[in-house]
């Protein structure tokens, strides 16, 4: 009888939760397959490299990525550009350094250990330059949103005409996937906006996917190492568990036989 009651309660909870959940209406994110998902998930180097290109040519005008250093671009598990390539990338930025011996701040070309240079000198100027909305820092953006990569991927393709009768506020755009459907960021991706170095066709979908992958890597630069180590750790623990289990059985068989 108790078991039946238990089942009854469980069903009740499910009914409640599904009933309650149904009241929240939200457009599900566009489905795509992510290379980094799963136990053996790894980033696709091509996607990361193209994603960096999209970031640097499109996003970086407004969005900072301040937790990353230029050196990360050649380190293992990332886009893995060649070190010369990254040196060039770093040198193309002006890094504020100093003070020098005269007490003056000066700018110099970026070097590998430098953090990525922010597009704006401070948050206030970023807000002022973008009509009152702060373009969020992208370092951990993919972890700062629920289902981050899918969210970014969908959002970038979510600019559609607002439904009939929808009143859009001044200076905002309609986006299917944004909370509240209003977003300050204009639609930035158009087909063939960038010219990929590896010859991949730069469709909006492709660019959105590449940059989402890149941002996931930016947020989780140790993801590949984590998956690799995790697999080994769990394998080890399972073997150890088996050994201990059989040892335990052997030990306890003494007690049981005494009975």
């Amino acid at each position, binding site marked *: 009888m108790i078991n039946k009651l238990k089942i009854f309660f469980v069903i009740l909870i499910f009914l409640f939760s599904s009933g309650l959940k149904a009241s929240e209406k939200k457009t599900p994110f566009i489905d795509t397959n992510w290379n980094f998902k799963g136990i053996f998930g790894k980033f696709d180097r091509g996607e990361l490299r193209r994603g960096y290109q999209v970031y640097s040519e499109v996003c970086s005008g407004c969005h900072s990525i301040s937790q990353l250093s230029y050196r990360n671009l050649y380190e293992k598990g990332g886009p893995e550009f060649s070190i010369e390539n990254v040196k060039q990338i770093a040198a193309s930025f002006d890094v504020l350094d100093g003070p020098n011996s005269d007490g003056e701040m000066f700018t110099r070309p970026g070097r590998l250990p430098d953090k990525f240079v922010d597009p704006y000198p401070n948050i206030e100027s970023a807000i002022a330059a973008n009509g009152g909305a702060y373009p969020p820092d992208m370092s951990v953006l993919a972890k700062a949103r629920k289902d981050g990569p899918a969210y970014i991927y969908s959002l970038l393709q979510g600019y559609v005409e607002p439904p009939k009768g929808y009143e859009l506020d001044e200076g905002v755009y309609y986006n299917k996937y944004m909370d509240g459907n209003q977003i300050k960021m204009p639609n930035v991706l158009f087909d063939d906006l960038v010219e990929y170095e590896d010859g991949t066709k730069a469709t909006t979908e492709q660019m959105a996917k590449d940059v989402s992958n890149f941002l996931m890597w930016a947020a989780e630069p140790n993801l590949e190492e984590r998956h690799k180590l995790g697999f080994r750790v769990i394998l080890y623990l399972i073997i*150890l568990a088996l*050994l201990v289990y059989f*040892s335990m059985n052997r030990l306890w068989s003494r007690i049981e036989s005494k009975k």
Partner: protein
Amino acid sequence: MSSSYLILTTIIIFLLIFLYISWIFISNEIENKKETGERRDFLYTASYALGAVGLGAAVWPLVDQMNPDASVKALSTTEVDISNIDVGKSITVLWRGKPVFIRRRTQEEIIESQNTKLTELKDPQKDQDRVKKPEWLVMLGVCTHLGCVPLGGKGDYKGWFCPCHGSHYDKSGRIRKGPAPTNLPIPKYEFVDNNTIKIG
């Protein structure tokens, strides 16, 4: 990385001690086995061995986190502009958190340093071996005794003098008198061009 191996060895020693202690802890169980005539079992040994390996592997990240991290390692080179240094003047720059003395020596200093007899030196080294260009002396400003920063132009040899325990260095940064055992060390550096030195 020799330090890592040293640490690893220490861990292994600790593990052995740990194993020994746990052995004592379970020794009554082994006595029991002897009484019942049971032989020591492959299963138990394998469990212990595998457990010890895992424990060692788990300790490593906790130890390794204290080694220099990726951002510290990346900062290991510093470029210095030396175009503003006049003859007979020196500057001190920071490299890996330590002072580096860069001195543009006068002709007299160079000649004096080069003509010092090696027999007079506590840690014999030719001046030529201590510089890449005779005009430029680049060395770590850390006393080899206990790590204080020596003062320039002071001491019995008018080179450097460490105020902490009275070590006297000559104009080539070689130890002449006092408790320090060796000359001021020369960091790895190169001339990128005539006006720039890259240290590290």
